[in-house]
């Protein structure tokens, strides 16, 4: 279970958001500028809330009243960024292995095989990120986050930088991930159609406030 109850002032803009979610995929929905990225940056620990609490299951990650802030590297929260952020000086295989090395986890060839096959990237292992297409890059970023064995996976508009054709290419992988990887996810998007296919629960955000909570029915423009 993910519990978020935070306030954060960012210049003129402020976030005051509170929600809990138990879903396999929590869809964080809102227009650009609604505060979605700031919110998941707080969940990841990259941004400190001014006030509030962030907790996963029984573990508190942020509690400003107790001056508690667990740094990102100790949160075990995977993050797939919109712009992939693969390490340009490492090849695909080394990128995928990075989280395992940093967390000093044992070698797990079976898991590596499973993830690379799930995402169809096993043939790319020796390539450098500079030689990948946008869709491939995003799939490697997904694999890299998964292989660090996170307890929660954050995805910030992972399809946002891709054109329509590429989106259709990646979406099935995300569905497979949801059904097979067994890691709860928070999926950020401004695209209601995308979330309808993926999310099991929706948190709607507008102007830094949560305006609706519930199933995918709360998404606008739902087919009758």
């Amino acid at each position, binding site marked *: 279970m993910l519990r978020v109850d935070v306030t954060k002032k960012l210049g003129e803009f402020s976030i005051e958001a509170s929600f809990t979610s138990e879903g396999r995929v929590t869809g964080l929905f809102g227009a650009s500028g609604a505060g979605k990225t700031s919110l998941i940056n707080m969940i*990841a*620990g*990259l941004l400190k809330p001014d006030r509030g609490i962030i907790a996963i299951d029984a573990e508190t990650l942020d509690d400003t009243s107790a001056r508690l802030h667990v*740094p*990102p*590297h*100790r*949160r*075990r*929260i*995977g*993050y797939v*960024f919109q*712009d992939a*952020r693969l*390490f*340009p*000086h490492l090849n695909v295989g080394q990128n995928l292995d*990075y*989280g395992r090395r*940093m*967390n000093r986890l044992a070698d797990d060839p079976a898991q590596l095989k499973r993830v690379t096959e799930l995402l169809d990237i096993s043939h790319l292992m020796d*390539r*450098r*990120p*500079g*030689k990948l297409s946008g869709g491939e890059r995003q799939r490697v970023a997904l694999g*890299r*986050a998964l292989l*660090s064995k996170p307890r929660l996976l954050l995805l910030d508009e992972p399809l946002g930088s891709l054109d329509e054709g590429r989106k259709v290419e990646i979406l099935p992988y995300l569905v497979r991930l949801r059904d097979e990887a067994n890691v709860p996810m928070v999926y950020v998007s401004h695209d209601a159609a995308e979330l309808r296919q993926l999310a099991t629960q929706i948190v709607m955000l507008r102007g830094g406030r949560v305006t609706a909570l519930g199933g995918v029915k709360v998404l606008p423009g739902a087919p009758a």
Partner: protein
Amino acid sequence: MFDISPTEWTAIQLSLRVATVATLVATPLGIAVAWLLARRDFWGKSVADAAIHLPLVIPPVVTGYLLLLTFGRRGLVGAWLADHLGIVFAFRWTGAALACGVMAFPLLVRPIRLSIEAVDRRLEQAASTLGAPPWRVFATVTLPLALPGVLAGMVLGFAKAIGEFGATITFVSNIPGETQTISSAIYSLIQTPDGDTAALRLVIVSIVIAMSALIASEWFARRATQRLHGN
């Protein structure tokens, strides 16, 4: 003309040793300082920045004299180091290395700082979400990506150290075999009757060393850049 005498050889070898030691000792320190200046805000940062650049703008003879006052036998730091660690700088080749290191430091730090500033912080964030604590983020992401700048800084620092004259001769004098580097040997030779040919030889040697260093740095930087851009 190309018959290099033993004294000249000694000066060349000493210069190479002094510049190599100065560069190798200054580099880790330079990387740390460059990182602080590029990535951290702290009280007195602009003063620290100015202090590092000082050897670049004050007369080398002043730097040399300040080193003599501080690290000389009776200097505050020099006396302590000699008594407690047995390290003596005054009139030793180690002192020449210290002088060269101090003079080369601003030139060494600058490219490293610029290249660390150019490293995309979003990659560092990505590394931290993958479980890397700050020092490992630095070691596995920031430093490898800043490598071309580190190499450029090292070469620039080395070239500066090879050519250093004013601070060195002020601090450790011009003792053949101990502190007489190429520069001070050239200085002595042009003051000696009939020293012109030997001086010219050393001038050529110093140009060759400097050119080789620059070409090597270009080559390293190109290799490193290619590596980073995935070719």
